[in-house]
């Protein structure tokens, strides 16, 4: 049997999902969209039945207004799960039950998992679950997902409910004119609803709410649509009822009544709520809120890219290099063909190794990010940064991914998954390559120390700022062209602060690491082998001894004239740039390899062309790991490649402009 797990954001859904399924999880995408879908198998059911759970996105309603809501609705209607587990945050019960009322009217067997009961109890409150279950017509099981309490009972109940096909008892929360309208529509659309496999009560209610996508799904005739429109107009003008507002209002009235009958203590009296309010007096404070945020991010960056992650990465690099060398000498002793040794060691292993050594940095960074997310701080970041990002057509939620972009673009792209709107997500990804990642920093340092020895800091800073300026320009362009549509309204809950669960955090880290490793062994493996091949063979497929006669250098010689207007139409520089596609660090190492003999680096570049080269490096196609991540998030190979090509084109144009400007004025 397949169950869908549905609930609001911040109600402990992921924790419950992990508690039910352990590590038996499979991550995929929901059909047709790039929204992540997690499916897990329930461990140890009492009667040994096979139960799969699909984690739906966190939603507040079943309206078709946000990406998550549409995905959840489509999943329920198209995939028809055998049952629904609705997780409800007992400490914020009123708003949570709003979704419950809608889910219950779907006519699908359902159980309510009333989470955070420990919190309610510790505050001296209580909830009469038996009575609540009677009122809502759905079984209610009190649980505490974080402490693992009530999970076994929950399993027993949902297996029973699904096996006996116990549908929720219909609850009539609508009264008066709206009630009559819903009932008359229920009769009218009965056949359509049965054909579409949707509960007629749910369908009729949505139609009265003015939900046009429901009319499409039911395949109503033009005639029927007009009748419905007429009914709605009648409601609005003759009875003076605003149906959409009235239904929302009646749901909340019904819930409020239910809460009064079953809950003894109010959520705002809880310790957690009071503490959160107190913490927010500092963290979202008018004067210190922003500085504190930057200090926190500074510490996170320092720990991820330097103290912990950075050092571990160095360690990893050394270990991997030593491993590769040991492997090489072992194979040499064994008498393996040198070409094969080179293919394995210099091509495949080196490529994977250079990516894998990033793993510690990424894991540490994600550890901090998931702590920020799960503790509730990320919502505050979005809240305090929103105004700034709105100017370029994004919302505050995009700030953190952009910030991570200064560390490494790959995790930054992955973290855009937390953005609720598809538009915001894609736009953020498009802007990410403008944030100078740490891998580009050595290039700046290397070139600046040779050509601008007195102003290395200034040169580096100017490139960071140039990137930011261009991101703003690009944001404005995208906002007015490709992503013209309005961003999703910023209506965001500020959840209570919570201590993140260890298990949830560890599972998330494991998932990210696995994701990253899989990518390293597929896309990056392929790309490394290709670059190696181009480096080591000439056009006649003979092995070469020096990089100059290799195919890569030959290709670079062909392309080099393209870069003459930018001041570095030199095959050595171009070879370095092509290799940089593998990993940006390669730009420096290749330049060093190609210049230490007769040609010095100062023969290739002038100060002006060195700067133009740096500008191009800042902007051109990011490394293959990033392109792979972007491609995946866009869910479309062509678009991923398009973005990559586009980046090279504008990098060329901007580097040209800057080079010419420098020549003009200096």
């Amino acid at each position, binding site marked *: 049997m397949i169950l869908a797990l549905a609930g609001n954001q911040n109600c402990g859904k992921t924790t419950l999902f992990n508690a039910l399924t352990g590590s038996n999880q499979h991550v995929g995408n929901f059909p047709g969209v790039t929204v992540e879908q997690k499916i897990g198998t329930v461990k140890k059911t009492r009667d040994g039945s096979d139960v799969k759970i699909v984690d739906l996105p966190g939603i*507040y309603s079943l309206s078709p207004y946000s990406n998550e809501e549409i995905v959840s609705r489509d999943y329920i209607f198209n995939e028809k799960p055998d049952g629904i587990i609705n997780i409800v945050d007992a400490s914020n019960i009123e*708003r949570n039950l709003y979704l419950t009322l809608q889910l219950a009217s779907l006519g699908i067997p359902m159980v309510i998992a009333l989470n955070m009961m420990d919190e309610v109890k510790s505050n001296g409150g209580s909830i009469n679950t038996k009575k609540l279950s009677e009122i809502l017509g759905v079984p209610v099981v009190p649980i505490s997902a974080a402490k693992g309490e009530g999970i076994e009972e929950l399993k027993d109940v949902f297996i029973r409910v699904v096996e006996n096909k116990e549908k929720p008892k219909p609850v009539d929360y609508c009264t008066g004119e709206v009630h009559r309208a819903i009932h008359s529509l229920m009769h009218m659309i009965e056949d359509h609803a049965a054909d579409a496999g949707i509960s007629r009560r749910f369908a009729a209610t949505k139609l009265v709410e003015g939900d046009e996508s429901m009319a499409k799904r039911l395949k109503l005739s033009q005639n029927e649509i007009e009748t419905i429109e007429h009914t709605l107009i009648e409601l609005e003008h003759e009875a003076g009822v605003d149906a959409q507002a009235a239904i929302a*209002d009646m749901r909340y009235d019904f819930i409020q009544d239910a809460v009064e009958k079953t809950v003894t203590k109010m959520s705002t009296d809880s310790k957690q709520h009071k503490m959160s309010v107190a913490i927010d007096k500092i963290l979202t404070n008018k004067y210190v809120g922003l500085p504190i945020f930057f200090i926190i991010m500074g510490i996170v960056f320092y720990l991820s890219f330097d103290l912990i992650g950075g050092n571990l990465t160095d360690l990893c690099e050394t270990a991997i290099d030593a491993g590769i060398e040991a492997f090489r000498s072992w194979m040499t002793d064994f008498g393996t063909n040198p070409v094969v040794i080179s293919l394995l060691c210099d091509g495949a292993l080196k490529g994977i190794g250079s990516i894998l050594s990033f793993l510690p940095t990424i894991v540490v960074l994600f550890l901090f990010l998931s702590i920020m997310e799960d503790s509730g701080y990320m919502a505050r970041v979005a809240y305090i940064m*929103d105004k700034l990002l709105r100017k370029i057509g994004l919302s505050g939620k995009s700030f953190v991914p952009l910030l991570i972009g200064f560390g490494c673009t790959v995790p930054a792209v992955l973290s855009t998954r937390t953005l609720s709107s598809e538009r915001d997500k894609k736009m953020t990804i498009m802007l990410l390559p403008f944030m100078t990642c740490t891998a580009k920093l050595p290039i700046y340092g290397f070139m600046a120390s040779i050509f601008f020895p007195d102003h290395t800091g200034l040169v580096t800073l100017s490139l960071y700022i140039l990137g930011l300026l261009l991101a703003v320009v690009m944001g404005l362009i995208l906002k007015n062209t490709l992503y013209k549509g309005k961003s999703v309204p910023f209506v965001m809950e*500020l959840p209570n602060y919570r201590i993140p669960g260890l298990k949830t955090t560890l599972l998330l880290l494991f998932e990210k690491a696995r994701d990253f490793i899989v990518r390293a062994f597929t896309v990056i493996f392929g790309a490394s082998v290709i670059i190696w091949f181009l480096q080591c063979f000439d056009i006649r497929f003979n092995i070469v001894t020096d990089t100059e006669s290799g195919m890569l250098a030959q290709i670079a010689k062909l392309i080099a004239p393209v870069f003459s207007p930018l001041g570095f139409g030199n095959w050595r520089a171009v070879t370095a740039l092509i290799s940089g596609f593998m990993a940006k660090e390669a730009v420096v190492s290749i330049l060093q390899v190609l210049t230490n003999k007769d040609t010095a680096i100062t023969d290739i570049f002038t100060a002006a062309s060195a700067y133009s080269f740096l500008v191009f490096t800042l902007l051109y196609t990011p490394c293959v790991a990033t392109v792979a991540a972007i491609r995946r998030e866009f869910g479309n190979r062509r678009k991923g490649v398009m973005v990559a090509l586009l980046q090279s084109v504008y990098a060329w144009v901007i580097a040209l402009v800057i080079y010419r400007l420098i020549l003009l004025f200096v």
Partner: protein
Amino acid sequence: MKLSELGVGKTAIISEVKGQKALRGHLLDMGLTPNTCVTVRAVAPMGDPIELALRGYRLTLRLEDAGNIEVEPISMVCSGNCSSCASNSGKRGKRS
């Protein structure tokens, strides 16, 4: 009066929710329905968005979107019988 014009610390009753369908639907779903009691708790450091308290939870909203919500300010400060109306669930007339 618009919700966006209500000062920090002030409480009001929602009288009407306007705006485009999607935004309106979203606001209503989050519990900003007519007759609901709502308090403006704070303003973000840069002056926008604002933080609201309603129905026992806290919500943030841009001033632009809050401009779609018509409210009637009330001068009430947490009376005993509804234990701070705004930060708790509560509607005028229902709880008194």
